[in-house]
């Protein structure tokens, strides 16, 4: 009987020849990522001092301050400082700060390799599954256990197969494909499970776009969103890191899935997730006219180079609507510099965008773009929960970077195809 990607990757990590959905395995961790907001400062630093103040393998630990950078107040600044000092104290060489959301930094710097197990103290760690790695979010206490032992227990998940046929039309992005999948599976429909995305629409996507899909697997409750690593993944490594090993896990053609779904990418229209659940999805053209106050392009979901370039195709030579603000935060310093060099940031700024540093701060309502009572934001991010970006009386709509760009021109949620 064939095996899913999860069954293959987790079996290897547990030192077994094979594993099946439902098995509980103790797996060896290949990379453990700690961020600032839920890393050393929560439970970990204090309890390590009580138990054993040494990580199991400093080369497998990555520390990234990204949520509170740049800090908006003294409390945030203290957390960033604490995180840096903890990384220095533990001689963590893989330490990054101020350079952008952790998941993007992980993939750009070769910390997520095909076939490996990666855990991180942030739920969107599942993004790395686009590289054929089993990557998942864990809490701080569980991370404490990983740092001390290099292991954790995982239940081998059942897998939902999501097949996307056809190709995306003009003005449609991976974000729309992602929202459609979430609408059908539901915000809890993949709880405790893995999702494997496949099909010609997925294969045709550049890496930047694939990451926007696996990033949101957790929005269906999934443990990980997986894609098979192909030549595009290898090319990405060749450009970004010194990855040289061939460890590409492929699911078997006769693998057993708990559910199989099929979609047609060519039938997609621009979509938006309305407040306050990510599966509250509708076609942009079908919702009532919705006025916005803020538009946001950025984060580990929607701030990569491809996203900024796509937004620029909409905004080139245009002006954003008066009275609203368009905030742009490139997903990393690397993205920032590439977009600057290619003239993308100038196009966006000339249209009226405010270009921010690479950060998680806007998406999670920590700084740089907090919403007031009664304000609505169209955002290229991953979550529209009540109060996430600021006031509990504000509203968040999720759309593709192109939809966000088009909406910033008109001042209400707008189909980007109107500007193509």
């Amino acid at each position, binding site marked *: 009987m064939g095996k899913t990607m999860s069954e293959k990757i987790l079996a290897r990590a547990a030192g077994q020849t094979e594993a099946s959905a439902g098995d509980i395995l103790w797996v060896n961790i290949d990379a453990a990522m700690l961020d600032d907001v839920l890393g050393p400062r929560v439970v970990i630093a204090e*309890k390590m001092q009580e138990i054993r103040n040494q990580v199991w393998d400093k080369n497998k630990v990555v520390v990234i301050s990204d949520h509170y950078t740049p800090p908006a107040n003294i*409390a945030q600044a203290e957390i960033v400082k604490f995180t840096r000092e903890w990384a220095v104290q533990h001689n963590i060489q893989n330490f990054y700060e101020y350079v952008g959301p952790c998941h993007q930094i992980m993939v750009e710097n070769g910390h997520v390799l095909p076939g490996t197990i990666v855990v991180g103290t*942030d*739920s969107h760690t599942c993004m790395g599954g686009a590289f054929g790695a089993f990557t998942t979010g864990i809490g701080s206490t569980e991370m404490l*256990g990983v740092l001390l032992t290099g292991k954790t227990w995982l239940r081998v998940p059942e897998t939902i197969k999501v097949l996307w046929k056809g190709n995306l039309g003009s003005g449609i992005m991976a974000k729309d494909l992602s929202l459609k999948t979430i609408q059908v599976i539901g915000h809890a429909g993949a709880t405790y499970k893995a999702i494997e995305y496949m099909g010609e629409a997925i294969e045709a996507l550049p890496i930047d776009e694939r990451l926007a899909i696996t990033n949101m697997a957790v929005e269906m*409750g999934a443990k990980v969103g997986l894609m098979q690593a192909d030549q595009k993944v290898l090319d990405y490594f060749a450009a970004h890191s010194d990855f040289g090993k061939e460890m590409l896990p492929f699911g078997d053609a006769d693998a057993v899935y708990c559910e199989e779904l099929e979609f047609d990418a060519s039938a997609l229209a621009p979509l938006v997730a309305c407040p306050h659940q990510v599966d509250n999805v509708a076609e942009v053209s079908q919702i009532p006219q919705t006025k916005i106050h803020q538009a946001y392009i950025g984060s580990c979901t929607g701030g990569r180079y491809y996203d900024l370039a796509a937004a620029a195709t909409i905004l080139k030579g245009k002006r954003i609507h008066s009275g609203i603000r368009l905030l742009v935060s490139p997903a990393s310093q690397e993205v920032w510099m590439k977009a600057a060099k290619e003239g993308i940031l100038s196009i966006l700024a000339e249209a009226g965008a405010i270009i921010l540093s690479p950060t998680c701060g806007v998406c999670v309502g920590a700084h740089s773009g907090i919403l007031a009572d009664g304000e609505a934001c169209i955002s290229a991010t991953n979550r529209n929960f*009540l109060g996430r970006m600021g006031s509990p009386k504000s509203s968040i709509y999720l759309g593709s970077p192109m939809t966000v760009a088009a909406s910033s021109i008109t001042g209400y949620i707008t189909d980007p195809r109107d500007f193509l």
Partner: protein
Amino acid sequence: MEHTIKGRALKYGDNINTDIISPPQYMELSIAEAAKHAMKAIDPNFSSKVCIGDILVAGANFGSGSSRETSPLTLQHLGITAIVARFFARIFYRNAINLGIVAIECPDADRIQDLDVIEIDLAKGEIHNLTSKQTYRCSKLPPHIMELVNTGGLVPYLKEQLGNK
């Protein structure tokens, strides 16, 4: 740990996510300070009305969203020792267990009313509603998880396994 847990139910609905339980704007505060803002988007009085030993009861998909352990930590700080829900989001469930909070899945959680007094029998997998005189079936914790909860969570377990320093 006792094999029964008795307490007053505080009842909420479906999809109580981590942005509601611990609003991101207050995560930079200490757990004690952040706890004052727990659940405020749906219940501004939550932190003042929780008493030690209360049991949080909710519907489907409790704790969805972030991996933030500040969610179970703030609930625990306020005195919540057990959470009953139709089902939990995965990371929250693991976080609760790791902190020694009893997280129990009960298909009939919706039949429990706010302020009912309930008793969870962990060994039998039953919840007795002492107010309405009903009994509901609930999940039993698997042995490897029961071992963690009995030890008081992952930290005491690690101390036991690894020894002090």
